[in-house]
């Protein structure tokens, strides 16, 4: 068992409060990703769970036992740091066995556990090397090996892939996910990369300014964001936002182009922010008129930047595009995919 419960976690540095009462439940075996822009408090929250950061108020529990007062070494939690934090003066084997050595396990037992963990991560041939002799991906794996060798209740990852190049990041992302599926250890993972969050998480927690904006499964957040921030943060390319008004039961742009139907609850004349995912826009013979600005083929799909009412709209299509910049095209929004947000509060309306 390894469920983590956070109750009203607050953290202040002097007069500045950086975490404003966070509540979060991470179930046993769940892969939870904390995501948000820099400075949103996600790393602070992770470090608080680790015990590396004290909290000003609230309760952190592991399997219903409050662990606020316990030092990191007594929490049975392992952490993988952003810069890996491998001990430079120790070989891979010594790095991985360090926690077992501190726990005074026998040499043969340490050897056995290190070899087992190294086997899982393909590190056996590297056991006698020093960290400086390893590539970025190998170091990342050693850092994970050091965590799994202890067989802890919870793994914490603090932006572990941010130092890797794009290709390696994709590979390691899969490896971490596979590892989680294999070991089933409760994991809390911090990243600012929403693609990592989407691809890896059972549950995503979107944070901003020390608050939780929304939590839920990746597709819940993608399909039903609770506000403009979450809608814009989750998804790549990001959701398009257009100022619009409700007229005769439809949502129209300032130039009069119809985006789709409006809910009955919104009276005529209501100002709204319309949100449309790039894949929910399609070219059509009729509909709102736009001008093609930019065409970016990526192979599998093409990304078009369209100009409408002085704003830019991004759409993606899997069709081969024969258009040129400057061409006029008509677009429509897939039925049922138009999202509406309150212009003032930015909360989702529909």
């Amino acid at each position, binding site marked *: 068992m390894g469920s983590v419960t956070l109750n009203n976690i607050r953290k202040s540095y002097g007069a500045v409060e950086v975490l404003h009462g966070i509540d979060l439940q991470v179930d046993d075996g769940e892969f939870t990703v904390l995501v948000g822009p820099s400075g949103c408090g996600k790393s602070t929250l992770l470090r608080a769970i*680790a015990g*590396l950061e004290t909290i000003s108020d609230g309760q952190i529990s592991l399997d219903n036992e409050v662990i606020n007062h316990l*030092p*990191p*070494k007594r929490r049975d*939690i*392992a*952490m993988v*740091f*952003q*810069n890996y*934090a491998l*001990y*430079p*003066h120790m070989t891979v084997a010594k790095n991985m066995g*360090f*926690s077992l050595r*501190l*726990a005074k396990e026998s040499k043969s037992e340490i050897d056995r556990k290190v070899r087992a963990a190294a086997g899982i991560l393909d590190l056996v041939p590297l056991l006698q090397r020093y960290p400086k002799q390893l590539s970025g991906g190998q170091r990342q794996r050693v850092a994970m090996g*050091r965590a799994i060798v*202890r067989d802890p209740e919870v793994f914490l990852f603090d932006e572990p892939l941010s130092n890797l190049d794009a290709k390696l990041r994709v590979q390691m992302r899969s490896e971490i996910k596979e590892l989680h599926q294999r070991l089933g250890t409760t994991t809390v993972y911090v990243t600012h990369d929403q693609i990592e969050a989407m691809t890896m998480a059972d549950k995503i927690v979107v944070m901003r300014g020390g608050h939780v904006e929304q939590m839920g499964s990746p597709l819940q957040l993608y399909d039903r964001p609770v506000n403009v921030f979450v809608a814009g943060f989750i998804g790549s390319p990001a959701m398009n936002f257009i100022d619009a008004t409700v007229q005769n039961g439809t949502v129209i742009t300032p130039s009069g182009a119809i985006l789709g139907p409006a809910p009955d609850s919104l009276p005529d004349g209501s100002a709204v922010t319309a949100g449309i995912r790039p894949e929910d826009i399609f070219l059509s013979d009729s509909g709102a008129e736009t001008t093609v600005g930019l065409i970016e083929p990526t192979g599998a799909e093409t990304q078009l930047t369209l100009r409408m009412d002085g704003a830019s709209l991004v759409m993606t299509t899997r069709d081969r595009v024969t258009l040129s910049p400057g061409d006029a095209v008509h677009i429509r929004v897939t039925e049922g995919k138009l999202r509406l947000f309150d212009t003032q509060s930015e909360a989702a309306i529909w």
Partner: protein
Amino acid sequence: MNETARPYYWAFISLCGAVIAVYILFPIFWLFLASFKTRDQLAQLPIAFWPEEPTLQAYRDLFDSGSQSSQLLNWPTLISNSFTVAVTSTIIVVILGTFAGYAFARLKFPGRDLILGGLLVSRMFQGAALLLPTYRLMNTLGLQDSLLGLILLYSAFGLPFATWIIASSLREIPVELEESAMMDGASRLQAMFLVVLPLATPALITAAMWHFVGAWSEFAFASILLESSANKTVTIGLASFVELFTLEFQKVGAAATLVAMPIMVVFFFGQRYFTRGLLAGAVKG
């Protein structure tokens, strides 16, 4: 600088370096060579650079209990006293400097940077200005003419710089390494001893070397505090020796070589750490 000028530039720099090295080292080398000559060879004209028949007689005279120089100055005692003072104060300075440096590097407390800066400022006082107050203080404490007094004094003088060097070096070591160790089950002290200090070895060696050399060659305070011949150190011995044997320059050379030997040994084994330790914090890693 263009490509053709570059070799000339480096040749010029190297030449300047060589001239400065010869300028500084020649007197020391001359003294060293003199220690292998006889008194007659030293007096002969024209001056011979290399000893014609190298001899260790001057060194034997220092330790030969029958010789005049040995009766006036007991070199084994002088050396033993200097070792006691230099080694003990080095151990004290490195141990206390390590803990203090760690505190300055890692812990947050009011006035931390001010105090660390203050430590460095304390190094800027001329030692001579402190001679009299130190003498009175030692007298009051009953520590004059004792090796313990000198050990405490040297430790107090050496601690600020050692602390500063060690703190600078520890600040370069990512705090995540320590946090990682603590997540792995280490206490703060274990994290410090098992992870941080092995990585700070160059700084620890530098601090130790710097202090040892300073303590070994210190003269002013030793000369005003130590009175009995049983407590005197090599620098005082050497000063007395130069006065007594001005005309026997080969013996002066031998004594000076003997006194300089531990420092040379320390630098020989520690020099690769020395620049690394002193440069800690100078550039981003």
